[in-house]
């Protein structure tokens, strides 16, 4: 049995520069892969933070909408109560006028008792109407008086507008704007996630650069990966 055949390297010596250059490129590529991975992790973390912020904004928008709708319900209830009181007020005032007129006619026709009763009723109604108005709505929202001084219109839209404005808490919130902010945050998070694909593509190129036998191709691939990495990272962070 003979000894195993062992290749002989006698006389063969690779130059140090060549060895260093070969080793350094691979080392650089390995470092680049690590760098790209770390950058990807940072982007993922940042995207996740943006997503959390978007969720917070979503919750805020819902809370604001609840507040706004509570205010709206309150405004509508107050408004309709006032409108109802106004309608009664208007009817009472019209009745006052008509009863006084009726009293005059009755008195002139000789129905003095009936005339007095009608006038008493008119006076009572006047007091009721005045109290109704004082307790329920402001005369500022009454417009359009007829010939007898009876108001004809309750300014519903103006009153609604004022009630809404007076509700400070609801007036301060803008759920639509909060929703827009949440959407923007979510878009940014999404965009960052998109650049991760570019980074993984850079890793693909670097991996191929590592295993290729052609040195020149290795350099080009690594260069392209670096370019992609830089562009993606800059756009991901700066463009954000």
């Amino acid at each position, binding site marked *: 049995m003979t000894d195993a055949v062992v290749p002989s390297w006698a006389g*063969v010596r690779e130059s140090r520069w060549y060895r260093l250059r070969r*080793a350094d490129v691979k080392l650089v590529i390995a470092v680049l892969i690590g760098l790209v991975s770390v950058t990807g992790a940072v982007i993922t973390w940042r995207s996740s933070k943006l997503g959390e912020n978007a*969720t917070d904004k979503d919750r805020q928008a*819902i809370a604001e909408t609840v507040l706004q709708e509570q205010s709206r319900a309150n405004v509508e209830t107050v408004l309709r109560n006032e409108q109802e009181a106004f309608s009664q007020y208007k009817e009472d005032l019209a009745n006052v006028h*008509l*009863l006084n007129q009726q009293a005059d006619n009755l008195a002139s026709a000789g*129905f003095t008792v009936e005339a007095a009763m009608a006038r008493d009723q008119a006076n009572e109604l006047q007091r009721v109407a005045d109290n109704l108005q004082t307790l329920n709505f402001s005369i500022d929202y009454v417009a359009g008086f007829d010939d007898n001084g009876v108001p004809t219109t309750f300014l519903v839209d103006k009153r609604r507008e004022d009630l809404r404005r007076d509700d400070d808490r609801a007036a301060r919130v803008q759920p639509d704007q909060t929703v827009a902010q949440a959407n923007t945050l979510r878009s940014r998070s*999404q965009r960052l996630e998109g650049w991760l694909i570019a980074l993984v593509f850079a890793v693909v190129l670097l991996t191929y650069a590592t295993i290729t036998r052609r040195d020149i191709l290795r350099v080009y691939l690594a260069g392209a990966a670096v370019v992609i990495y830089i562009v993606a990272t800059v756009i991901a962070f700066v463009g954000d």
Partner: protein
Amino acid sequence: MAEIEAPEIEVEADDPNFRRVLAIVVVLITLFAACLAYLHEQNGNLEDRAARDAQLASIRGFGQQVAASTESQFDYKIFVQQQLLQRRQLVAASRERTTDSQFASVYQADAQRYTDLNNTIASDAPVKTNDDYNAKDASLNVSPDESRLTQQVLSNRANDFGNKSDAYVAILTVLAVGLFLIGLSLTVSGRGRYMLAVPGIGIAIVCLAWSAIVTLGSVTDIPQKAVELTAQGQQKQAAGDLQGAIDSYHQAIQLSSSFGPAYARLSDAEFENGVSNTTGNQFESISKPDNLKRAIEAGDKALSLGESNPAFVSSLGFFHFAAGDFSQAESLSAQALQGNGEFPPFIFNLGVAQAAQNEKSAALATYKKGIDILKKETDSGLRQQIVSAALTDLEIADASTSKAKDLIQQIKGELVDVEFATNTDASDTTIDGLTVRDDRYRLLAEYDTSADDTTVLTNVWYFRPIDAGGKGPFVQAFTLDTTSTPSNGHVSTTPRENGPCLPGGDYRVEIYAGSKLVGSNDDSPFHLPDSGLGPLTSEGGDSVGITMCRPENWDPPPNQENGSLSFANRDDPNESIVSFSFPIGTTTLATSDLQTIAVDSVVQSDALTGVSAPQNGFEFLGRTVNGTDVELPTTTVTGQLPSGVLERITTSVGDDGIVRTVVIRAGNSDRLNVIRAELINSLRFLDVPEPNP
């Protein structure tokens, strides 16, 4: 000896290309996984966004509902106030006409004042009639309904995105298995490595195809216009415009054929559009076959699109039952109960499907459960309607199958016993000589019985419309139902009405002693022909103080006077009816004299000639606040107008000081008699005093 350093040449014991290729495959799979992660994130974001928007829509819908309700209440209060003023004006005007001339001017001024007051608040009142109110209420509910539908659409969209997002996670997990196999292949030499690497790559390819399918899969995307049209359809349906509602739903479906709520509502509207129910029950059971078919088609489509509301599913189950598909009916009804198992109509829908298939123990158990829950219902009106609908459903089952008659009758008896709770235990009770007849748009049953005078018997009525041609199932008419106590072995039930206008058709009564059926005119139902004046529709109400039936081709005058009902035949202007009531002023005259005076005043104002002698009778029927019918004494004369048209005046003056008058006209005496028989008999003067004991 110089140190020899071995060059860094990769010694690849195996195929070097294998590892290279595998490395490339791994990084490509990683790239694919990154894309999947991106898609997962994207769909997760879209899900979050849709879920948030759905919540916002539901909150806004609630706010809109509150606003709509407050506005509706305001409108209704003003409407009621107007009605009140109209009544006051009517009373004052009536007093003016009937009081001493000295005080007439006082009442005239009062009447004018109420008219002016009414006009004053008229500008605040967008609704003038009950129909106006219903229409306004329906329109106010459009926005909240739109929000509810939008919420549903967005929730479905959120679900779709959520499903996609979850699918990407599943693909990533499977992909990890592929990567594991590929990685494992590097540890094996020889051909064995291919046994691991190839399946790994295969899994990656499958994942690629899977992700393509998921990505291309559609998500809910309903145009807002379709939502609006569906909400408008609901508005029309609520206002009674069923055909308009159906058209709106079809338009919505044209815009989006995957909008489940539009199909579900279309199904309901189609069924309702085919109902000719005159029993006043909100739970309708019998629709025309074509409508039923269309309702099932639309409902099945809605179901396939994911509609799962228990009310809808239960209704669809019932539609299938009505069409004779008992198995599908049972399946759907059971499904509905999973969503809401505490609403008796849903439970009875399942029970009747089981009964129709003669699943005795299951059906009895289901009905027992429904009855137990129904007993807790405190609204007696609602309970009555639910039992009535359940009885009608059992009628349908009875008409559809012959194998479960005993079971169906047993259940009917239990339902009747629950509703009337007569506590009658008279299993040996018999009845004989059952006859049914009509009286003034009312029905009554008479029979002899072996039951003693303390036994309470229950008379349960069923009705089949005349257009059914004497075929098909009856509808349970709960407004006719009564309990009776025999008197000397004989029962004559209190006459009852089948809704405002007694419709022509077949009437059947079942007599129960407790839960036992002791008699019925099942073999020969009482047939009531339709009115000689054509189809009738009900008119009037509390606001007028009168209810009556009018022929559909008779129109009211442009300005109906307050407190009166007037109609004229549009095909023959000579034919008309005017009915009115008003309080009489202070007087010392007897009511019989007042009746004659009231008749004379009309005779004079209409310049009648050939006036007949006054005839006294009891032509009018009044109804007390408690719902008791009272026959009112009347005086009637007939004469001829200058135009030759015949006029018949009937007046009654009650103990309550109210004058009630009806004037009918026709070209000849035959028609006058028909109008009298059909229309005066249908009149009810409301709020008459309780009869003296």
